[in-house]
C-alpha cells in the first residue's frame, strides 16, 4: 500500500517542457487506463494544470521500484525523449508524496502563493479519476484529505485573501470604498495589456457598466466586444468623468491627461460623489494635486505595487500556519494508512501462526501416542489460548491506540520480521 508520485512543475521545468507533458482530460483518462492495464499502478490519478503534470499512484510492488517505470511511461506516452525529462521530473514516495499533494492543494506549491484555482483543479482531477474507477481506497482517502487541507487553509489562514497583482489590488481597493461593484460603473482609459488585466478583474468582480476610451478606437472596440463594454470618444473628459465610480488610466503620455481642473469640474458635475482613480500610466496620467480633492481617492502604480508587496509579505507570513495544517493532515493520513496496514498485518500473522500451530501439533502429537484424546484436546486448547493471548492483545491495541499506530513508522519492517517472503502479499 505504498504511494508514488512522479511529476514536474514550474519550479523544475520551463514552460517548453511542461507543455510537452501536459494532459488533456482525454489523455489523463487514457494514461490512467494504460498505467493500470500494464500493471504499473493499481490506483492512479493524473493531475495536470498549466504549471504542473503529476501522476499519483499506488503500485503493486515497492514504490521505489515503480518510479523509473512511471518516468519511462511519461516520456513514452508524450513521445518525449527520456533525457529531456530526466532533469525536470521529481519522485516522491509515501509520506513525501502525501505532503506534496497536501501542499499543492493548499496553494503552498503554486507559482502565485495561495492561489485559489488549484483547489478546484485538484477537486476536478479527483472527480474525474474517481468516476473513471481509477482510484481506490488509498488515493480516495488521500485526495479527500487534500481537499480538506485546501479548504481549511483557505478558511483558517490569510494565504489566499489578499490581492497579488496591481490590477486585482486596484479593484479590491475600489471595493473598500464602494462595496460590491455590481451596481457601479468604470471607465478605462487606454487599451494596453495592463488595461485589459484591470478590465478582466472588473468584469470578474461584476462591474455593472464598463466604458472604454482609447486614442485608437479600433483597439478599444475590440476590447469592448471581448469584455462587453461601451466605447466613448477620446478626450470628452467632462462627460466621460460624470458617471463612473472607478476610473483606470494606463496611457502613454508626456503630460497628465486628467489635470486638476478637469477632475475638479468633473467632481462639481458629480456633486462630489466618490471617485476612485487608478493611475497605471508611466509617466503618471493623473495630476498629483487631484488626490487632495474631496471624495477623490487616487492610487498610482507605485502605491499599488507597494500594496502588492505588503500582501505578498502578509501571505508569506501565513506559510507556517498553512504548513501546520498540512502536517496535521499528513499525520492523520499516515495514521489511517498505518492502521489499515497493521490490521491487515495482524490478520496475516494470525493465519500464519494458525498454520504453524497445526503443523506443530500434528508433528508433536504423532510422537505422543500415549496421550488420551481428552488430554490431546486439552493441550491443543491450551496452545490456542496462549497464541490468542499473544496475538489478540497487540491486535486490540493496534485497533484502539492511535498513538501506537503513529509510533509504528515502518509496517514493512514488521512484516519482514514476522512473515517469511512467501507470506508477503
Amino acid at each position, binding site marked *: 500500500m505504498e504511494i508514488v508520485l512522479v511529476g514536474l512543475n514550474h519550479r523544475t521545468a520551463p514552460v517548453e517542457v511542461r507543455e510537452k507533458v501536459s494532459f488533456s482530460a482525454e489523455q489523463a483518462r487514457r494514461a490512467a487506463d494504460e498505467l493500470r492495464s500494464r500493471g504499473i499502478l493499481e490506483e492512479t490519478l493524473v493531475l495536470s494544470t498549466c504549471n504542473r503534470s503529476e501522476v499519483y499512484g499506488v503500485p503493486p510492488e515497492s514504490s521505489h521500484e515503480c518510479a523509473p517505470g512511471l518516468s519511462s511511461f511519461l516520456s513514452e506516452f508524450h513521445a518525449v525523449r527520456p533525457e529531456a525529462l530526466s532533469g525536470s521530473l521529481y519522485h516522491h514516495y509515501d509520506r513525501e508524496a502525501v505532503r506534496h499533494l497536501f501542499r499543492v492543494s493548499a496553494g503552498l506549491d503554486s507559482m502565485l502563493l495561495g492561489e485559489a484555482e488549484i483547489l478546484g483543479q485538484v477537486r476536478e482531477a479527483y472527480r474525474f479519476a474517481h468516476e473513471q474507477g481509477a482510484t481506490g481506497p488509498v488515493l480516495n482517502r488521500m485526495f479527500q484529505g487534500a481537499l480538506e487541507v485546501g479548504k481549511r487553509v483557505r*478558511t*483558517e489562514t*490569510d494565504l489566499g*485573501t*489578499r490581492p497579488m497583482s496591481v490590477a486585482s489590488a486596484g479593484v*479590491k*481597493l475600489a*471595493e*473598500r*470604498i*464602494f*462595496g460590491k461593484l455590481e451596481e457601479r460603473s468604470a471607465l478605462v482609459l487606454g487599451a494596453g495589456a495592463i488595461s485589459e488585466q484591470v478590465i478582466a478583474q472588473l468584469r470578474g468582480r461584476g462591474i455593472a457598466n464598463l466604458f472604454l476610451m482609447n486614442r485608437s478606437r479600433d483597439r478599444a472596440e475590440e476590447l469592448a466586444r471581448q469584455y462587453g463594454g461601451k466605447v466613448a470618444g477620446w478626450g470628452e473628459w467632462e462627460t466621460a468623468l460624470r458617471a463612473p465610480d472607478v476610473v483606470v488610466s494606463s496611457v502613454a503620455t508626456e503630460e497628465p491627461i486628467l489635470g486638476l481642473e478637469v477632475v475638479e469640474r468633473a467632481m462639481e458635475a*458629480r*456633486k*462630489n*460623489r*466618490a471617485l476612485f482613480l487608478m493611475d497605471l500610466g508611466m509617466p503618471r496620467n493623473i495630476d498629483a494635486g487631484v*488626490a487632495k480633492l*474631496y*471624495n477623490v*481617492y487616487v*492610487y498610482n502604480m507605485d*502605491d499599488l505595487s*507597494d*500594496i502588492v508587496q*505588503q500582501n505578498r509579505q*502578509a501571505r508569506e507570513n501565513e506559510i507556517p500556519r498553512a504548513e501546520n495544517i498540512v502536517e496535521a493532515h499528513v499525520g492523520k493520513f499516515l495514521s489511517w494508512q498505518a492502521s489499515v496496514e497493521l490490521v491487515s498485518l495482524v490478520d496475516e500473522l494470525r493465519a500464519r501462526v494458525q498454520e504453524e500451530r497445526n503443523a506443530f501439533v500434528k508433528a508433536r502429537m504423532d510422537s505422543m501416542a500415549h496421550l488420551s484424546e481428552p488430554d490431546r484436546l486439552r493441550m491443543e486448547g491450551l496452545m490456542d489460548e496462549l497464541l490468542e493471548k499473544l496475538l489478540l492483545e497487540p491486535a486490540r491495541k493496534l485497533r484502539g491506540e492511535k498513538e501506537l499506530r503513529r509510533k509504528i513508522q515502518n509496517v514493512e519492517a514488521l512484516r519482514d520480521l514476522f512473515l517469511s517472503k512467501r507470506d508477503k502479499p
Partner: protein
Amino acid sequence: MNRIALILTAAAYLLSFGCYMRFLNTGRELIGRLGTLFLALGLVAHYFALLERSRGLHTVPYHDLYGSMSLFGWLLALTYLGLELYHRQRSVGAFVLPFILVFFLAAHLAPADRLPQPDLRGAVFAFHVTLSILAYAAFALSFVLSLIFLGEERLLRKHELGNMVWRLPPLELLERMSQSSVLVGLVSIAIGTALGFVSVDRLMGQYWFYDPKYVVTLFVLLLYALYFRLARTATWRGARASKLCIFNFVVVVLSFTVVNLYLSHSHRYF
C-alpha cells in the same frame, strides 16, 4: 440569581468581544458568528441582570445613574445586534463591544444607592424613558461608525492600508450603517419626546413647562434630522457627514452630562 446573571453577562460580552477581535484579525466566519452568538447570550443575561437589579432595589432601571447606564448598554447592544443582522456586517463589533462592556461593568460594579421609592408614572412615562435611551444608544452607535469611517477614509487616502483596512466594512456600507442607526435614533427620540409631553400632561395637567432639557432634546433631534438629510446629498456624503455625526453626538453627551446634572429640573439620568 443577580450575581449569576452579572457574571454570565460579563462573560458573554467579554467572549463576544474576544471573538469579534479575532474575527477582525483573521476574518474567520465561524469566529464572527460565535461573536454574534455570545452577544445575543449577553443580551439575554443582561436583561435578567437588569430585571433582578430593579427587583432588588424596588425601582425601575432608569431610576438611578447606574441603572440608566446599564439600560443604555443593553439598548446599545440590542441596536448593534439589529444593525449587524440587517447589514450582515460583523467587523464593527470589535469597536462597539468595549462601549457596551464599559457601561455594563460601570453600572453593575458600582455600589447600589439606597433609593427612594419611585413615583408611579405609568407605562407612557416608561416608554418615554426607554425610547429616549434607545435613541441615545443608536446615536452612540452612529458615532462609533462615523469614527471608523473617518479612520478608514484617512488610511485609504494616505495609502496606509496595513491589515486593518482589508477587514473593515467598505466606506459606503459604513455610511449606510450610520444612517440606519441614526434613523432608529430619530424615530425613537421623536416618539419618546412626544410620549414625554403626554406624560407631563398626565402628571401636571399641562403639556409644557420650561426645562432646558426640552430645548436641547429638540436641538438634538433637529441636528440628527439635518445629518440624515445631508448625508444623502452628494456634497455632504462621506467625511463631512461623518464629522457632523460626531459633532451631533458631542451635543448628546453634553445633554446627558451638563444639561442633566446642572440645568434640568426633571431629567436626571436620561
